[in-house]
């Protein structure tokens, strides 16, 4: 317990010093890589909440990622145009409003998709979540007002009081703070009464029903929470890229999130962050070598999954001695 705490604090310290370290090393690109890893880590951890902890293999999480991003995009667009979204909602570029709005909207969409998709299971669930995500993808592509296929350019990152969000280091620190809170919150949820029931449902739904636990509403709740977390990550990503586009909603994005989870360790708290890190580093290294990098990535994924039996997290636990 204490050992975990020391490790965690040490890691947090290194992460907090990252802007200084990358500056000293003259590697500013590495800071933006780190920012993206943290953001994708949150998205992957959110997916892992349903996939690993809840046993629901969603292949549609790009929908929530993209919607989170588009909420930021819409609000920015209407603020600069001085118009109302749907003739009702004024735009804004205040992060303290755009983030909660993104979380709320992705949660609502997750509730809708979950209500329909969770009536099925197994392969059907995978296909239905994918189908919904594709519908949302094409819906956004068709929105010509908001750039259609090109998406919305967000010229300035959202603002926070007293902070200069245009500064890369400041932006990184804000993302790091949010990631830290996200991680602590996720850990809390996993260890809650709800988390225990979700774990039970993953293991044996029939047994849980015999204990009087109706699976559907618990799984839906988990799905909504997961959608909210993914939407949060999407909103931050739109701020980071200064861009919200259908790319964020593409089914390959759902696949990438899934790869991060599997690479890092399904059903672990920290694994998805490791997986996101490994994925982003591999992507940037491999893509500079060859345009066929996804093939190499696939091979590496195969080796990691078969070789570690539980992803990088299992490897780390084994190297660190006891579990």
């Amino acid at each position: 317990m204490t050992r975990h705490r020391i490790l965690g604090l040490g890691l947090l310290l290194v992460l907090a010093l990252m802007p200084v370290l990358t500056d000293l090393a003259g590697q500013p690109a590495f800071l933006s890589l780190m920012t993206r890893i943290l953001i994708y880590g949150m998205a992957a951890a959110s997916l892992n909440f349903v996939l690993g902890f809840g046993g629901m293999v969603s292949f549609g999480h790009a929908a929530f990622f993209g919607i989170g991003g588009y909420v930021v995009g819409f609000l920015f667009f209407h603020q600069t145009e001085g118009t109302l979204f749907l003739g009702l909602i004024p735009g804004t570029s205040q992060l303290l409003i755009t983030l909660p709005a993104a979380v709320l909207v992705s949660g609502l969409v997750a509730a809708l998709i979950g209500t329909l998709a969770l009536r099925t299971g197994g392969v059907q669930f995978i296909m239905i979540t994918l189908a919904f995500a594709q519908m949302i993808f094409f819906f956004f592509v068709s929105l010509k007002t908001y750039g259609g296929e090109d998406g919305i350019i967000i010229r300035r990152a959202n603002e926070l009081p007293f902070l200069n969000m245009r500064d890369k280091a400041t932006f990184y620190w804000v993302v790091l703070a949010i990631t830290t809170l996200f991680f602590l919150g996720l850990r809390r949820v996993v260890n809650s009464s709800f988390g225990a029931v979700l774990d039970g449902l993953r293991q044996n739904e029939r047994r849980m029903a015999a204990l009087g636990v109706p699976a559907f509403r618990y799984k839906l709740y988990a799905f909504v929470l997961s959608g909210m977390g993914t939407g949060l990550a999407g909103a931050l990503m739109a701020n980071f890229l200064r861009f919200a586009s259908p790319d964020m909603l593409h089914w390959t994005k759902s696949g990438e999130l899934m790869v991060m989870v599997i690479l890092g360790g399904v059903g672990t708290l920290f694994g998805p962050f490791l997986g996101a890190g490994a994925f982003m580093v591999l992507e940037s290294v491999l893509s500079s070598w060859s345009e066929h990098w996804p093939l190499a990535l696939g091979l590496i994924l195969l080796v990691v999954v078969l070789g570690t039996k539980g992803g990088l997290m299992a490897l780390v636990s084994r190297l660190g001695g006891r579990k």
Partner: protein
Amino acid sequence: MSVVLSVRGLRKRFGGLVATDDVTLDVAAGEIHALIGPNGAGKSTLVNQLSGELVADAGTIHLMEEDITGLSVAERVARGLGRTFQITSLLDDMTVMQNVGMALQAHEGGNFRIWDAVQKRRSVWERAKAILRDSLLTGREAALVADLSHGEKKQLELLMAMAMAPRIMLLDEPMAGLGHLESQAMIGQLEKLKAQTAILLIEHDMEAVFALADRVSVLVYGRIIAQGSVDEIRSNPAVREAYLGAEDELC
């Protein structure tokens, strides 16, 4: 005695096979009603309809005078219907203690809380400890369910069902696969459980049935061919013909 569970005219077909054929039976408070019959008679199918996993084609089920025919599994559990599975169905990645704890947690409610700590639910864990201390699984609290013996799993099924404080318990072959000593222990336990809950006991161990049952129903090809006290069933010619004569085939 008041009737806890009342089944009227229950019917279930699987394609051309009539698995439950006009089954009518009552289980009264404080009694063990045994349901016997050869393999494939439709005993498990009946239990699954009573528990709500299968939907009956016709007939009604009442629990404490309330019609529960259309209710879901979880809704029936909430009204006091408990069960064990013939093929044990447990939370394999969890310990014995966590399994009992889950039953208590489910029974207690408050499980949409995402901000509490399940480890700190003292009422759950203290009761789980007490239940296990007084059980045959004492000393095995920390064992993973996947590592339990068959007999231990059967015990855990029973403990979890009882932790829910049911009004009626459906026991689907609780002694199947147990050794002689384990069976004897189980018989002793069921004897004691009678005081706490009504029991519908599906069993093919005749010794157990005759030792425990207050009433017996005999199911053959989905139909109840005889119903009565242990003595009546023993001496019933139709039952004898159906299979008490061929005792070895009985299951």
